[in-house]
């Protein structure tokens, strides 16, 4: 097991609160979030859709549409600077230069009316003083790096001429076009792909991560993907962090009922299945408009008790790098 | 079956909910108020003004506005401008409603059949629609009126006819979308006749886009009828029609601005009212536009 504490921190979020002001009221999308990503690590942010994963990612590179979005409080420290205090120019400079992002839908994430090569070359030219010709040459190199065959020809293709897997590779190439790739935010990078392609893309991301020594923030709802790629894991539910651990502790000894539920829904994972737990988590995510201060999982939790609706639980340390936020840990049966 | 019934009910209440939502849509409310004002003007026209829209009095011709009891002044023949505008609202609203009525009736009928029957019938109708839409709209109207002879009634007919193709399009498109729904299949399997299906099941669920189109259509028809009258192809003197009033004011652009300006403002306001309302309706009825 890696000793994560001794590694250098690349990015940390402290007490971040993000809401959206809609005409129906305030949606509290992310609440009191703390997390950190070490240099060279992959941190997986796990949860169902709507749990605040993507909002968290967009808070980092400040792509939250404002209005209606409001970052109410908190700090996002990246290389010693609080990103939330930067002005618009500095943020724009940071985007693509040190923090890149790839998205879930390779089908819609590339601009349909521009050639692949031009889109990637544009990123080169944005961050470096180089000619278009030079930029296109480097683009070909990058496409080779992400293992797109016949790269010299592909740069003249439009996105709709590529398959989903190839497009996601092109997206990754675009992310790598940044001069100093420090952090790659991958928002469900494989969800829209075939299973076989998924594995290839995940391997590609892992390999590249080592090659250029960047960190990855991997956003996913798929525990299988987490097991394959992550070093550390943060489980989010309805805007709250509910469990955080290195990947081994989490899979060996999941503590939060929600984490258990997620693992339960993994198809081939007999280990977490037992008679009392259902395969799928019952109920639905609470409405973030009307949500109170208690534990958001209360209405779906098999272990819920009277304390749950009142306040959000304090942190309970399970191990050196394993914490959980739950009032009724004692109700849980040992999972092994 | 329960499910499909429910589906239909939900759609109906969707329309009701949409109308309810209109209450919160400011532009739509403004539009509605403008339209209501003109309707009231039209209904109570004789009680709203002491003057006659047609009586001439050369001695007070071209009286400037806001100085005498003729609030908006008088025209070149000494007729009270405000009175003529008030009476003009009758004509414009009637033209708008009737010509839209014409296009609605034929548009719905043909569009329904075309979308429902499909096949060769649909093909022929669509080619005809294409051809009619290849004519610039006002030109088509002008030609029809010219052929029928210039008059207010013929102008209404011409406007009604030339708008039919766009209604066919709208109705057909929503019929095609609606036809695929489960409730239609379910009702057909339960032995509903084609006529029942078309008019009782499909049509009520296509109402939303038709409603929007018709609201826009009234505004358009009022504009067109003003244009036709302006060209001498619609209402004939001394009818207090707004377009005609603007036409006969042309020679006074240098001497009496009010004769030009006020009838135009009347047309503008009425059409604006319908456009605002249509915009609001579209916002609440078209879920795609909701954000």
């Amino acid at each position: 097991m890696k000793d994560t504490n001794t590694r250098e921190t690349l990015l940390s979020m402290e007490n971040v609160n993000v809401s959206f002001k809609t005409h129906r009221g305030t949606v509290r999308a992310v609440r009191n979030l703390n997390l950190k990503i070490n240099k060279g690590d992959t941190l997986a942010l796990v949860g169902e859709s709507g749990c605040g994963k993507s909002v968290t990612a967009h808070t980092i590179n400040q792509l939250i549409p404002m209005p209606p979005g409001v970052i109410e409080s908190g700090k996002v420290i990246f290389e010693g600077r609080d990103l939330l205090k930067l002005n618009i120019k500095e943020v724009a400079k940071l985007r693509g230069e040190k923090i890149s992002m790839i998205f879930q839908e390779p089908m819609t994430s590339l601009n349909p009316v521009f050639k692949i090569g031009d889109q990637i070359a544009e990123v080169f030219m944005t961050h470096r003083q180089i000619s278009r010709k030079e930029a296109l040459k480097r683009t070909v190199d990058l496409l080779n790096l992400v293992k797109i065959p016949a790269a010299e020809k592909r740069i003249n293709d439009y996105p709709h001429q590529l398959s989903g897997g190839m497009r996601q590779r092109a997206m990754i190439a675009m992310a790598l076009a940044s001069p100093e790739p420090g952090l790659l935010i991958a928002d469900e990078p494989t969800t829209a792909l075939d299973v076989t392609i998924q594995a290839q893309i995940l391997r590609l991301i892992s390999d590249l991560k080592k090659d250029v020594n960047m960190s990855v923030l991997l956003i996913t709802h798929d525990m299988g993907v987490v097991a394959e790629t992550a070093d550390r894991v943060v489980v989010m539910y309805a805007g709250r962090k509910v469990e955080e651990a290195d990947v081994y502790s989490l899979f060996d000894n999941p503590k939060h009922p929600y984490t258990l539920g997620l693992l339960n829904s993994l198809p081939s994972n007999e280990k977490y299945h037992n008679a009392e737990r259902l395969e799928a988590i019952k109920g639905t995510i609470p409405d973030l408009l009307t949500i109170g201060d208690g534990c958001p999982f209360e209405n779906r939790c098999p272990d819920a008790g009277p304390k749950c609706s009142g306040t959000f639980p304090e942190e309970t340390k399970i191990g050196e790098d394993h914490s959980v936020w739950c009032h009724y840990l004692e109700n849980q049966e040992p999972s092994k | 079956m329960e499910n499909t019934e429910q589906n239909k009910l939900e759609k109906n209440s969707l329309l009701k909910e949409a109308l309810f939502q209109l209450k919160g849509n400011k532009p739509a409310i403004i539009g509605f108020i403008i339209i209501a004002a003109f309707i009231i003007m039209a209904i109570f026209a004789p009680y709203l003004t002491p003057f006659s829209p047609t009586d001439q009095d050369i001695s007070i011709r071209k009286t400037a506005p806001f100085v005498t009891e003729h609030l908006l002044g008088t025209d070149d023949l000494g007729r009270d401008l405000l009175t003529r505008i008030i009476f003009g609202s009758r004509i414009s609203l009637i033209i708008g409603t009737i010509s839209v009525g014409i296009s609605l009736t034929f548009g719905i009928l043909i569009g329904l059949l075309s979308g429902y029957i499909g096949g060769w019938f649909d093909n022929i109708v669509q080619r005809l629609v294409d051809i009619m839409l290849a004519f610039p709209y006002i030109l088509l109207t002008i030609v029809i009126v010219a052929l029928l002879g210039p008059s207010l009634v013929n102008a209404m007919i011409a406007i009604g006819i030339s708008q039919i193709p766009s209604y066919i399009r709208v109705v057909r498109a929503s019929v095609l979308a609606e036809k695929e729904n489960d409730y239609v299949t379910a009702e057909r399997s339960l032995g509903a006749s084609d006529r029942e299906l078309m008019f009782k099941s499909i049509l009520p669920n296509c109402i939303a886009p038709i409603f929007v189109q018709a609201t826009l259509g009234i505004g358009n028809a009022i504009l067109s009828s003003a244009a036709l009258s302006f060209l001498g192809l619609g209402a004939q003197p001394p009818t207090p029609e707004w377009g005609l009033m603007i036409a006969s004011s042309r020679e006074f652009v240098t001497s009496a601005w009010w004769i030009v300006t006020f009838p135009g403002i009347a047309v503008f306001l009425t059409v604006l009212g319908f456009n605002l309302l249509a915009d609001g309706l579209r916002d609440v009825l078209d879920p795609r536009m909701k954000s």
Partner: protein
Amino acid sequence: MLKYILKRLALLLPTLFGVITLVFFMIALAPGDPARVMLGERATADSVEQLRHDLGLDKPLYVQYGLYLQRVVKLDLGKSIKSGQKVSEEIWDHFPATIELTIWAMIFSTVVGIIIGVLSATRKNGWIDFASMGGALMGVSMPVFWLALVLIMIFSVKLDMFPTGGRMNIRYYFTPITGLYVLDGILIFFKSGDIKVFISALHHLVLPAVALGTIPLAIIARITRSSMLEVLNQDYIKTARSAGIKESKVIYRYALKNALLPIITVIGLQFGLLLSGAILTETVFAWPGIGKWIYHAIEARDYPAVQGGIIVISTTFVLINLVVDILYSIVNPKIRLS
């Protein structure tokens, strides 16, 4: 790509054929005897009969239709009753004026409309958005001819900035080269160094082009806004932003090029509006174009002229829409490369 254009051209022919047929039957089946209508109530029965014969109206309808088609295919639109001149020649004389007016109105409305639309979309719900969308709604609610009169009243009569009508200062004698006076003005300037024709042509164009362009402008601004708003929500815009592309580039290059697709379609449809609007605008501004010409033909019940004019205007409209479709396919690689 070539195949696509050919396919579109092939689709065009039935539409044009339909237009010609419809025009023919509309006029042939109109109530009243055209010959009688043309000659007036006091004409003798003999002269009416003579005209019927001259026009071929005494033949059975299907024969008339066949002859008519034959002539149209040979681009022979018959002779004007009123002037005795060939209809095609008269149209040829009047068309450049309309083309010039329409093109400038279109340039005005497209450029201004797109700028306003983009500004509104990027400042959604701000005061610019509010004002321009309110303005756009007002624009589509205005009668063109009234707007034209109001413009004349303000800018010609009151402020004396622009002429009230016509295409050219009548004291300038010049022989049209292309018939598009602004272009002619440029050519004359290069030939003789005389710029006053160019200036006068532009000067006369401003008010009619603005009047004619206002409604399309409003429509284009609205569609640009909604199209831009939709595009700005797309993933690839997020991608571009997250890659650090400058915001101005994201909007004016990445987003606008995508947003242009629906805008182009709408612009094509506006030409129909412009061509019909030209009838009204040309009447108000004494603009010697085809709109004013066809209006007088309608007034005089000059049926051959009306038929010819409608066919030419509709054909132009259909052809413009073809050009627009081709433009669309050039901007959209999905169509271009399929």
